[in-house]
């Protein structure tokens, strides 16, 4: 009976043959809903915005911190050319050697004026010969007086400045020059391998990646578990189970939540990179971008497996209250990865970079540090993919076994057995 006249539309006159299209596209319908529902979820959106704001603020702080130059005013005895020269030498210490500070001199007529300048805050420190004689110190050396202890950076710079000036003066007295005396005495650093990413940046990057993983995996994982148990608790799943094969339901959910989790991380990474380009660390952007690309790839593959396991955690629960219990192993694993990866180094880090899920963070960090050979991320990705496939296969079975069982929490074993 294929009544084609659409008006009036009596209830349920869709011809049965029309109602039964194939089930093939069902996973796509499920996936679309997962994405739409999640993307419009207020909690999710607020969380995303807050995270983006935090990343931007953090980068802004770093930029400010990096561009900030220390400036000091140093009081020197009026007419003391050596003291003035020492301050200038200190100001000339390049940034790469811990210098770059802005130093100004303030000539003071006598000790009383110097003390007044310190007390009034007109000067940060007072550089004067130890024996009190003007026009160059004797063997007694120099004194840097502050209202309290002088600033450590200033002390360090002036120590170098005074030493340089004294060296120059003594050299001249001995009939030679400072340059001749120090010739061949420079020390520069070099590295055997890798790009120029210093350890501090590396630590920060590994911390950021671990955090990205943590937020993405835990947030989206909990969401997929919650959405599974919501359907189970309400028995909606019984209606859906009669309409589509359960594996379509699972596939749609995993893919949907993976897309959301991945998109979230791409947004974070993009915001982070954009913000970083305004900071002095912009020089590491190329290597950081490569590392981030690996991270996104690893996360995408790894999260497929995690999402599947989280879906089972949802199916093992009977009500939302059970979730905390059934997702505990997953939460522990994700937290373990978070803590281990951002603090790992050396051989341990190398091992972690091949252990599935931990490798999502560790391998990109090793790529960034220039520690990994070109084939290492590829091999590690294959290991991760194998894990994801195994997790998907086992989860599909456990999900089917647990989803339609009611009454209390279900164990993995019982779930796997009932799916037979």
């Amino acid at each position, binding site marked *: *009976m294929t009544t084609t006249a*659409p008006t009036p*539309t*009596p*209830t*349920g*006159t*869709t*011809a*049965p043959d*029309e*109602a*039964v*299209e*194939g*089930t093939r596209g*069902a996973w796509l*319908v*499920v996936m679309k*809903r997962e994405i739409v*529902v999640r993307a419009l979820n207020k909690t999710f959106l607020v969380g995303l915005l807050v995270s983006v704001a935090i990343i931007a603020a953090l980068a802004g702080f770093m930029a400010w911190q990096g561009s900030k130059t220390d400036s000091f005013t140093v009081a020197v005895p009026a007419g003391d050319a050596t003291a003035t020269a020492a301050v200038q030498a200190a100001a000339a210490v390049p940034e790469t050697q811990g210098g770059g500070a802005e130093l100004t001199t303030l000539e003071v007529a006598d000790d009383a004026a110097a003390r007044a300048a310190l007390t009034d805050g007109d000067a940060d420190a007072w550089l004067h010969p130890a024996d009190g004689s003007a026009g160059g110190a004797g063997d007694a050396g120099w004194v840097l007086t502050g209202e309290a202890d002088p600033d450590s950076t200033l002390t360090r710079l002036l120590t170098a400045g005074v030493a340089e000036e004294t060296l120059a003066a003594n050299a001249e007295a001995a009939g030679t020059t400072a340059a001749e005396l120090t010739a061949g005495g420079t020390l520069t650093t070099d590295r055997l391998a890798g790009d120029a990413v210093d350890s501090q940046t590396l630590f920060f990057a590994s911390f950021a990646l671990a955090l990205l993983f943590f937020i993405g995996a835990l947030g989206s994982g909990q969401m997929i578990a919650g959405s599974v148990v*919501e*359907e189970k*608790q*309400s*028995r*909606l799943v*019984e*209606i*859906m*189970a*009669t*309409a*589509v*094969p359960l594996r379509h339901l699972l596939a749609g959910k995993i893919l949907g939540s993976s897309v959301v989790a991945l998109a979230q991380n791409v947004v974070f990474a993009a915001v982070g990179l954009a913000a970083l380009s305004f900071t002095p660390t912009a020089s590491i952007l190329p290597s950081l971008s490569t590392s981030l690309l690996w991270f996104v790839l690893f996360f995408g593959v790894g999260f497929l497996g995690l999402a599947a396991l989280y879906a089972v955690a949802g199916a093992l629960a009977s009500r939302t209250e059970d979730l905390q219990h059934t997702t505990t192993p997953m939460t522990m694993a994700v937290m373990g990865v978070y803590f281990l990866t951002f603090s790992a180094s050396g051989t341990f880090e190398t091992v972690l970079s091949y252990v599935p899920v931990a490798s999502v963070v560790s391998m990109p960090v090793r790529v960034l540090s220039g520690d990994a050979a070109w084939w290492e991320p590829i091999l590690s990705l294959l290991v991760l993919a194998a894990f994801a496939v195994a997790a998907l296969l086992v989860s599909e079975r456990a999900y089917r076994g647990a989803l*339609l069982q009611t009454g209390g929490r279900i164990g993995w074993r019982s779930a796997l057995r009932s799916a037979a």
Partner: protein
Amino acid sequence: MNTDSLEVRGLTRSFGDLTAVDDVSFTAPAGLLTGFVGGNGAGKTTTMRMIMGVLAPTSGEVRFGGAPVTRADRRTFGYMPEERGLYPKQPVLDQLVYLARLRGISTPRARAEVLDMLDRLGLAGRSKEHVEKLSLGNQQRVQIVAALMGAPRLLVLDEPFSGLDPAAVDGMVDLLAEHTARGVPVLFSSHQLDLVERLCERLVILKSGRVMADGAPDDLQRAGTLRHRLVTGGDAGWVRGVPGVHAVDVDGPVALLEVADDAALQRLLATGLERDGVRELTPVRPTLAQIYREVTA
């Protein structure tokens, strides 16, 4: 016109040592409303879940249209589970269309049909509301729409009338009548025996996982113990002495009797006429509630 019937053969389901459904067989014929009656824990829900394939039977089979039921068949069945639930935070229309899409119905078609049914159940204009904002009765109506959309070829409804006000019950009955008119078999469970008696053309009574009675209510009533009501001119205590007559209850001139056969009935009448006269002698058809109590006793 649908001519396929639902047939359940020897369906059994055990949970550990407990046999929740024990060798249950019955037919829900095409175009008829079949009532599924039984106390709590009688196995109604378990049987329905097995029919829908949500639960695997320990043994036995479910047949539809003369052949074992397939996944493709089940996709065309409308099902209303016992515990109600929908996505609480999703608008009514959105989730109904989603459920329809899962059954392979196109979005425009699903929208039109859903809106029409919501209208008929008195929910017009509330299609954009979140389900959690609706009253329980209205959530129930949304659930009904979920089961009835897409021209199902079989309806399996677990307690569809619970929680509905009388007007909604009537609306629901009309909706179901449309489906039986198309030849669709409808199997529904209920605790409301008066409602089942009013609606059903067929009845299956379940107790402790077993079928205690199965047939048309009329047949069941005929098969049930027929009683007679006798009203005499004086005290009716004498009926206890009539052979072939069992007095269920005697209250002054009124007696409720079980009469063995026609000869006994004639004896009863003759004796009555001889004594104080007979004002009334009528057969009393047992109500469904009586039959239910009798077969599940």
